């Protein structure tokens, strides 16, 4: 397999294979938290940070501990434990050292443990056999891609308040369809770079 440059991975994970729009990860919090632009900005930033850090830690744990000991089959449980522990740690750290940041980001941190995009990014990193630099680039860019998608959605939902939507389509239904159109728009970037 050819070596894929980290820059290609960054561009690809933000645009062509956006973790939300192409891999469908992190839908739950995407649906719930995209009501306001402020909220989605906070959550997006928290996701970028946690995803970058946890892919790096999980990379170390997988190749440093699990592979030498032949325990690869435990990866799911180890990854989710690492993510949960890291989020807990960051929450305590932020609460202790920066009250402002805690109020801006802290409330989103517990939500992130159950955000499947975080675990998904770690799993994709192993499945695609990225090296450390590639993993770091991937974790960061996947987070940015997710944040971009939720921000766009929050903007659209704000405008949606002025439209008359058929009763049955109100709520999640119309959001799904809009996301579909958004995914189609992002497919326009296809062919720019290819990582899979």
């Amino acid at each position: 397999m050819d070596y894929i440059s980290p820059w290609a991975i960054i561009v690809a994970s933000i645009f062509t294979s956006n973790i939300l729009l192409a891999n469908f990860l992190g839908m739950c919090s995407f649906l719930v938290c995209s009501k306001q632009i402020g909220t989605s900005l906070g959550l997006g930033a928290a996701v970028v940070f946690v995803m970058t850090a946890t892919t790096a830690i999980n990379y170390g744990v997988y190749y440093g501990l699990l592979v030498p000991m032949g325990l690869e089959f435990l990866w799911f449980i180890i990854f989710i434990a690492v993510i949960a522990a890291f989020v807990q740690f960051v929450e305590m750290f932020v609460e202790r050292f920066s009250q402002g940041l805690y109020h801006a980001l802290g409330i989103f941190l517990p939500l992130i443990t159950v955000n499947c995009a975080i675990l998904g990014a770690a799993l994709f990193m192993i499945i695609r056999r990225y090296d450390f630099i590639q993993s770091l680039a991937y974790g960061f860019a996947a987070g940015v891609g997710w944040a971009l998608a939720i921000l766009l959605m929050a903007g659209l939902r704000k405008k949606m308040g002025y439209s008359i939507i058929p009763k049955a389509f109100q709520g999640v239904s119309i959001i799904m369809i809009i996301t579909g159109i958004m995914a189609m728009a992002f497919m326009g970037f296809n062919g720019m770079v290819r990582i899979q």
Partner: protein
Amino acid sequence: MSNLPVACGACQAGGVCQGKGLSTLKSGLWANNPISVQVLGICSALAVTSKLENALVMGAALIFVTGCSNLFISLLRKAIPRKIRMIAEVAIIATFVILFDQVLRAFYYDMSKTLGPYVGLIITNCIVMGRAEAFALQNPPIVSVVDGLANGMGYAGVLAVIGAIRELLGYGTILDFAVLSTSWYVPNQVMILAPGAFVVLGLLIAMFNAINAGKGAADAKPAGGH
């Protein structure tokens, strides 16, 4: 996560938790269907449904995991301290997910490759966690198993419908049997790709809403009440 109290409130109001298995079963399959009503577990519902076969395997995985994890969490519900219940639940769920993943790898390697990370992502699938939190922690084992299986089946059912629609329109086949002849039907690539998944699910939820509203059921909640 705001939907958990809603789901729980609904089942207490209807007396589902106290009732026998049948009402629990019905609630999981239709009235509180995990995907179309509670809007949980969307990720995998979209990602693995480009073909009916994948959707069925994923549905089976979820029935297995929710059933087993509900059983064990319910058995241990008095032993698990409240403070660490989340991590205990995750550990139990992850055990069954690993089990299923290993079996899939051993006997059905191609499917394991196709599903990729989405089998592992069952751990973070809110349906499993939601049922453990909202039901298994408060109910005896037998009812919990029924609840787990019912929610798994409700999920599997919706997955199968999405999978069938997407495979039919995207490839013109159902379970790899040609249904729509290519002599007059041009397979619509969009249905296989991401946008098709979003749109099909959106329309499906709208249909559920319309049917439930048509019934005039007082308890029909709009799906947006998340």
